[in-house]
């Protein structure tokens, strides 16, 4: 295998982990990125902070963007992700980490239930989580 358990968990584990429990791995990156036009200034950075280890997420994200070049623009990705996790309220209050993460979990689980998935490097991911990786790439 060309990966390790730690890599996998870091790659796919959001801050807060796959389960509803706490964050057992990785450190949070708080690097600020340019705001995406057409969406709230803070949205992109808020979304990126959902992933602990962006280094490995970038690998998946790069592959996603290569497959879907129309979504390479961070503004487009941010909008698409927000459409899934915060469709109605995109105020700074709603995009706080403690609200955004459970919204992401709900959205991801619903997408799996609906079959709204994409295959990246063999991994079958919910569309929104794949886009989140792409946002970090």
């Amino acid at each position, binding site marked *: *295998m060309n990966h390790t358990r730690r890599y996998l968990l870091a790659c796919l584990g959001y801050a807060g982990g*796959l389960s509803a429990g706490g964050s057992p791995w990785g450190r949070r990156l708080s690097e600020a990125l340019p705001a995406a036009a057409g969406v709230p200034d803070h949205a992109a950075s808020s979304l990126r902070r959902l992933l602990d280890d962006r280094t490995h997420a970038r690998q998946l994200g790069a592959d996603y963007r290569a497959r879907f070049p129309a979504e390479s623009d961070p503004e487009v990705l941010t909008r698409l992700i927000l459409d899934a996790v915060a469709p109605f309220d995109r105020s700074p209050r709603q995009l706080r980490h403690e609200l955004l993460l459970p919204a992401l979990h709900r959205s991801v*689980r619903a997408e*799996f239930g609906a079959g709204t998935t994409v295959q990246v490097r063999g991994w079958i991911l919910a569309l929104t989580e794949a886009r989140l990786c792409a946002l970090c790439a």
Partner: protein
Amino acid sequence: MFVDARQLPQDTEVEADICIFGAGAAGITLARALGGGNRSIAVFESGGYDFEIDTQNLYAGDVIGFSYTPIDRDRLRYLGGSTNHWQGSCRPFEAFDLDDWPFGLDVLEPYYRQAQQICQLGPYNYDPQDWIDAEARPIAGSSGDSLKSGLFQYSPPTRFGTVYRDDLAAAGNLTVYLHANLVGIDTNQAASSVTGVEIACLTGKRFRARARHYVLATGGIENVRLLLNCTRVQKSGLGNGNDLVGRYFMDHVYVPRAATVLADVSSPEVRFYDHHVVRGQPIEGILTASDEMRRAKQMPPFYIGFRVPVPAISELGMDRLPAPVRKLLGEGVASSIEYYYSRTASGMQLPAKWLYEKLWRTPPGTFVTCYCSGPYPDPDSRVTLSDTVDALGLRQARLDWRVPADFVQDMHRAHEQLAQLLGRTGIGRVRIESSETGYDPMQDVVNAHHHMGTTRMHDDPRQGVVDRDCRIHGIGNLFVAGSSVFPSYACDNPTMTIVALALRLSDHLKSLTS
């Protein structure tokens, strides 16, 4: 009682009400069920009590078509047959699995309950909800899921030749002839009735047997070889007037590492789909196609299980001995070593898991899936005869196993369903392995060593070799027992169904000889 046929006087004539050829799971079950009554039963077993290389070599044959384990390694030719090396996994067929059979689960279920005891299993209960414990439980499904949970129960495994030897010895109306090989079946001119059989020992001794009824219980390949070798009256082989004997050979296609699963290490759901023990009974949960998928025939039967990721043999580069070693040992010995090494390595799951947990003090969070499929029967997947003859003068078997072209596609679809299920329930993520991910699972595809379908059951002689009572069409007193009569199969291992069918046949033979 047991008799060494090599000690019989030359040209002995054995007479019995029923002759059974083969003492594996089917033959021994039949013999025990018929024993103790007022019918005389003669069982003829090619081997002795233990493995003998000269007898085993009678199983030699060719493999063409898709890669398959050597057919003289897959089976064992002594008392107990292949139960001397089976792994013990048992599960009865479901109702859907019998759609192509001439009878349904209601007919077979009473025999499954008896088979449950014969295979030394726990209670006859295969509902995953009844096997929940503190450490493992099945995934909570919901309506519309494409997958559902099932489970195997594991026999100790029951070595039929050892466990039931005393029963066979004690039955007053039963004689088991060891080292006795069926080499010829005589019929009347119309080939409508068997008039006698010829038995041979490797020492050269030959004798004959006559009975009212005869049962071939020598396995899915050997049953065919014996019938096709009988060409004195029917030139194409006995019972082969419609060119069906040997066709529809079926075996499960098994992929030991189809996908990688990343899961929460504390998840009891993942534990359920690996080998574990509940209330003293070893079981293994599996994920299979839902009833809706089966009803719609969207995919062939399959199951998915989870395993600790022991490296594949091919990844270690240890699936083949170095060329100089192979040359030194000779092809036969070298291939035997490779075969048994791969089987040993594939059984490393439990110690690997134990070691991981002891070293890291936590269950592994990464698993692989094993995928087992029962593709739809293919008439071109078949057993025929080669021109090579064995030590007794019979032509050897030639196996041409076919795997459908859409097998990989079906496997990926099944894993896409798995990914949806695990993602929806928040349990984990699935990576489908392929050359894109650096590991092509098809390089490690193996057969499951289940030889089925070659004398398939159907009431129409143009579609089957035997009828619903396992009697060969057109021959009034010749029957077949074992997995060669399966007209179709599920993803379940065949032993429990073999035993159930043998019990059913014994009831039928009792009615004929009462």
